[in-house]
């Protein structure tokens, strides 16, 4: 019998998700053994034309990492949707917009202007900004057009499952791989569409070993400003920790290492907007009933939007800034 086919793709991504897949160590051999890898640009040399030539629904599983922010990302998302039985949004970028969707705080023009004309490290005397089409003696060459608003995979094509995390933790990837192989080998039913795989239904706080008491904060501080007490909840020490507004699944990795959770596993179950949930959580630890004092304490929260939506701006209620 022919092996089931697997595709792995990166759209607006950093490459970390591909590395996380390789990080499952020896289990990658099971993957190579069980699946026929038909497309994985990060690791092997395939062309888009190879995918275009495949029959519809001939790829059993596609793990799609990266957000959608260009015509190319969109084209491949549609193509892989058409060719795959199961399309999985893999990692924060694909699932929630991820770090790339912080671009939604700006306009595309202002980003291009900064990156190519203003950034202090530039050497661009010709003031060149890449254009979608350029005329050269040999004819016209094109690069993919960038979008003004970064989208999640689910906003542009139909998605079957989400695997959260920036990147998803390797032990969770390995568990998902095992489950998928088991389902395919033994003809078991697939989980319901829309299921979040490789995570749990609790919040990061539920996995956190730090001790919690009553939190009463009069000033927020940034992690570098103190040497945090190792066993006490970071929020109680005044450090903004996204644990209460984040889905568990990573085993509270950052918090165990002394850093606050930054929210990469996305919003927990029954929450529709990670930032809104974080506002509630922060509001409940502020120790004041005086509006003026509250304003002063809130002013110590550094960059609320960038902190509360570091990984989920494209997935938020408002999706982009009105700039």
């Amino acid at each position, binding site marked *: 019998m022919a092996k089931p086919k697997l595709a792995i793709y990166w759209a607006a991504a950093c490459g970390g998700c591909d590395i996380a897949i390789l990080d499952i160590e020896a289990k990658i051999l099971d993957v190579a053994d069980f699946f026929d890898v038909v497309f994985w640009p990060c690791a092997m040399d395939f062309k888009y034309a190879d995918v275009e030539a495949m029959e519809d629904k001939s790829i059993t599983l596609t793990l799609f990492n990266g957000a959608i922010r260009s015509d190319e990302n969109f084209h491949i998302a549609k193509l892989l949707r058409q060719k795959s039985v199961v399309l999985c949004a893999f990692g924060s970028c694909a699932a929630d917009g991820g770090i790339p969707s912080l671009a939604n705080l700006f306009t*595309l023009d202002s980003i291009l202007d900064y990156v190519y004309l203003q950034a202090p490290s530039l050497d661009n005397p010709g003031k060149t900004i890449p254009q979608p089409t350029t005329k050269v003696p040999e004819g016209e060459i094109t690069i993919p057009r960038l979008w003004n608003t970064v989208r999640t995979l689910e906003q542009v094509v139909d998605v079957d499952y989400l695997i959260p995390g920036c990147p998803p933790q390797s032990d969770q990837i390995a568990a998902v791989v095992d489950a998928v192989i088991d389902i395919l080998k033994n003809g078991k039913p697939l989980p319901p569409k829309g299921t979040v795989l490789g995570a749990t239904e609790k919040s990061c706080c539920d996995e956190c070993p730090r001790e919690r008491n009553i939190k009463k904060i009069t000033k927020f501080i940034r992690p570098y400003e103190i040497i945090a007490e190792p066993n006490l909840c970071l929020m109680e020490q005044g450090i903004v920790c996204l644990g209460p507004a984040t889905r568990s699944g990573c085993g509270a990795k950052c918090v165990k290492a002394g850093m606050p959770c930054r929210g990469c596993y996305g919003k927990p179950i029954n929450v529709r907007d990670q930032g809104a*949930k974080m*506002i509630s959580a922060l509001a409940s630890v502020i120790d004041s*009933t005086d*509006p003026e004092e*509250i*304003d002063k304490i809130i002013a110590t929260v550094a960059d*609320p939007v960038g902190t509360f939506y570091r990984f989920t701006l494209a997935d938020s209620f408002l*999706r982009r800034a009105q700039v």
Partner: protein
Amino acid sequence: MSFEPKILGILCNWCSYTGADLAGTARMKYPANMRSVRVMCSGRVDPGFILNALRSGADGVLICGCHPGDCHYVEGNYKCMRRIPLTKKLLADMGIDPRRLRLEWVSASEGARFQSVVTGFTEEIRTLGPLELRELNFDAEHPAGTAQEISAAAS
């Protein structure tokens, strides 16, 4: 056509909703722009309700609760008092005028105050104009978005 603001009012059951009722039974006039939703306490107002309202077509959101110290559940309005300024800051960072969100305390006996709060807020939102969120929904016909298309057309 003149702009009629759409306003969502979220009123706590024990004080503000009763205050609104009083304004009604006393036949006090105020603009009909506000749709009100009753919640048990202003502490029940999740910031997500506010963002969802603004995303769904509201031009402004007014939240009314019991005066500080008077909350039926003792602390609910203090919770709300801490959430709203943080939500306003978030709105400002997202390029939305934070005046579109207002928190007011209205007791059960303050029908006249309710009338003036709703009138004042409606007028403020009328001055701010409609809230039109750009590129909220993905448009497969114009995936690159408006800003780039406008600048591409201009160049």
